[in-house]
């Protein structure tokens, strides 16, 4: 180890004797490594920006809908059974490792909200849990999210989108206001960030979000059936009182007669209209879908071959776009990296070969005073590696500088890449060894007598 450090120091001193040439030799590596780092950083930044944009559209999102109910040969269409429960949502979160966040959603049929003398019908009113904001990557601009405790307590709170806020409160601050929804007073505790329209053109800001318990138990006031969109299903499946085929238990757990008398609503069967889940990353979407399918099969006691009582949908198209964008950027960068580093390496080899020829006499002398072939090999190899490492370090500075300049003057997003730095230093040392080896080997094979006589 010490020996190598000494050899590297000696190589450094040898290179210092011809500063200009060493600098020019290493310029190829400087530019190579510099461009790799700048490209990687700018590329990473762009990829991250693209990914963020796309995932704000909900690219990683999976939507679980209840299956179709059918009665007398008439199918009621997707979402017409009441088979999904908040328990399913919780189980998905706990047992599916590829799922980052889960939120059950209770959709309410278009409901009027009233504030003072104004009223408005939001295009979407949903009851959910506090995790929805994580699933949908939705920030608040003022106020705060509701909490798990609010959900447990069915607190009378809600968050409103920008459009609703504008329509009801105009320019007044929305937070703290009391609004009414079907004669239930709700306190606005937060305003959601502007999201614009979704891919189908529907205004996503025209929304009210409240705890699902509030929506289910306070506003629709209907504990045994669904609310909103779930009402149709109530008719379809209420008849047999059996939610899951093959299940021996009834829809409602058996309750002792006395207990049933004491509290009629102590046990609630609740269904949700939709479960939204967010996969940990775009790549993990298929895995997440499989995990959710398996889990729901188990929970809903669906045997192999039986029809599912739920559907899972993802944003395949968006996901594919995102994957191909990322892949293209990465490949482009790889190509640039490879080309510029190879060019730099060939430059090093060229100059090292010239250097060996030029220093033939020196090699002969060193051999005459006792240098072994291995010593000569190591010396030239060390010089090549030192050149490349120096080039690598300067390249890192250059690359960082370039990407900072790009960020500063062009306003492109840039992301620091430690990997890029580590990889390019390793690669530049590797290039030094690879392209320095042949000249060094050639030097070590010289005949000292010939070398001393060389003019």
């Amino acid at each position, binding site marked *: 180890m010490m020996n190598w450090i000494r050899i590297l120091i*000696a190589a450094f001193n040898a290179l210092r*004797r011809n500063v200009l040439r060493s600098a020019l030799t290493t310029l190829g590596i400087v530019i190579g490594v510099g461009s790799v780092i700048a490209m990687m950083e700018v590329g990473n930044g762009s990829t991250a920006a693209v990914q963020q944009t796309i995932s704000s559209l909900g690219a990683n999102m999976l939507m679980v809908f209840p299956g179709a109910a059918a009665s007398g040969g008439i199918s009621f269409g997707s979402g017409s059974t009441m088979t999904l429960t908040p328990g399913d949502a919780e189980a998905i979160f706990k047992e599916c490792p590829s799922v980052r966040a889960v939120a059950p959603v209770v959709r309410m049929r278009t409901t009027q909200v009233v504030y003072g003398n104004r009223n408005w019908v939001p295009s979407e009113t949903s009851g959910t849990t506090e995790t929805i904001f994580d699933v949908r990557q939705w920030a608040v601009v003022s106020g705060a999210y509701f909490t798990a405790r609010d959900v447990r307590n069915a607190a009378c709170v809600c968050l409103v989108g920008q459009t609703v806020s504008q329509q009801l409160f105009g320019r007044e601050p929305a937070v703290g206001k009391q609004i009414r929804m079907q004669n239930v007073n709700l306190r606005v505790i937060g305003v959601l960030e502007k999201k614009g329209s979704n891919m189908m053109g529907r205004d996503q800001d025209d929304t009210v979000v409240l705890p699902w318990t509030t929506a289910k138990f306070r506003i629709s006031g209907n504990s045994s059936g669904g609310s909103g969109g779930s009402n149709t299903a109530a008719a379809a499946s209420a008849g047999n009182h059996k939610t899951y085929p093959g299940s021996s238990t009834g829809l409602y757990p058996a309750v002792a007669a006395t207990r049933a008398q004491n509290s009629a609503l102590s046990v609630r069967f609740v269904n949700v209209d939709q479960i939204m889940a967010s996969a940990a990353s775009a790549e993990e979407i298929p895995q997440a879908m499989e995990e959710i399918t398996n889990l729901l099969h188990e929970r809903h006691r669906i045997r192999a071959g039986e029809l599912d009582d739920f559907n899972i949908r993802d944003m395949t198209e968006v996901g594919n776009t995102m994957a191909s964008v990322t892949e293209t950027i990465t490949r482009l960068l790889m190509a640039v990296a490879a080309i510029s580093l190879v060019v730099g390496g060939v430059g090093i080899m060229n100059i090292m070969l010239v250097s060996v020829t030029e220093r033939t006499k*020196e090699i002969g002398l060193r*051999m*005459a*005073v*006792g240098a072994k*072939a291995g010593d000569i090999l190591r010396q030239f190899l060390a010089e090549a590696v030192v050149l490349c490492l120096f080039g690598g370090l300067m390249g890192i500075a250059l690359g960082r500088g370039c990407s900072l300049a790009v960020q500063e003057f062009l306003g492109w997003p840039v992301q620091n890449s430690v990997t890029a730095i580590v990889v390019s230093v390793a690669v530049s040392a590797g290039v030094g060894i690879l392209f320095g080896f042949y000249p060094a080997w050639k030097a070590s094979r010289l005949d000292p*007598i010939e070398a001393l006589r060389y003019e």
Partner: protein
Amino acid sequence: MNLIELRNITKTFDLGEVKLQVLKGITLAVAHGEFIALTGASGSGKSTLMNTIGCLDRPTTGDYLLEGVEVSRQSSNARALIRNQKMGFVFQNFNLLARTSALAQVMMPLAYGERHIQRKEAQKRAEALLARVGLADRMDHTPSQLSGGQQQRVALARALVNNPPFLLADEPTGNLDSKTTVEVLEMFRQLNEKDGLTILLVTHDPKVAAACKRVVKMTDGLIESDAMNGGNAP
């Protein structure tokens, strides 16, 4: 025991179709403390003999004993170490490294020794030797800043830095004017007499040969004459 013992050394160069025999059976013994001139016309084989003694070249046949040990058939790494430890080289054209200080030149052979020498100690040794050859005030000078005589003295210091028992000088005065030739030869004589350094000097200058104590003359690959002389100062 003789320092150098050559027994019936021959050297044949294979030039494709022609085989050129340069050394045709050299037998020579050199004792410790000798000061020998090796002379002869161009092509007489003195350079080849010199390279053989310097462990740079291997004889085709014959034995070469250095301090009683056969060295001509050892591995090239072993011979590199022998060159490093047992002998010093001085060349006609000095062979100094360009753009390198005199001090670094002298320290260079120490890097190839069997054991590592601490930088401080190496520097001390190099400084002492440079002072001894009269260059104490020029340690930081590079070859281009030194005169021919000074360059040859740096080369001499480099040759002696490992305290070798003998010195091989290949036309050491060939590129020097007569005044510096006298200076360098005087330095050789002192090293030989005071330190008992064995010196083998290749030259075709009769005046330089006359300064040595023993003159071996070669002709056509054989030793023509081997005579002692007074070792008069030139």
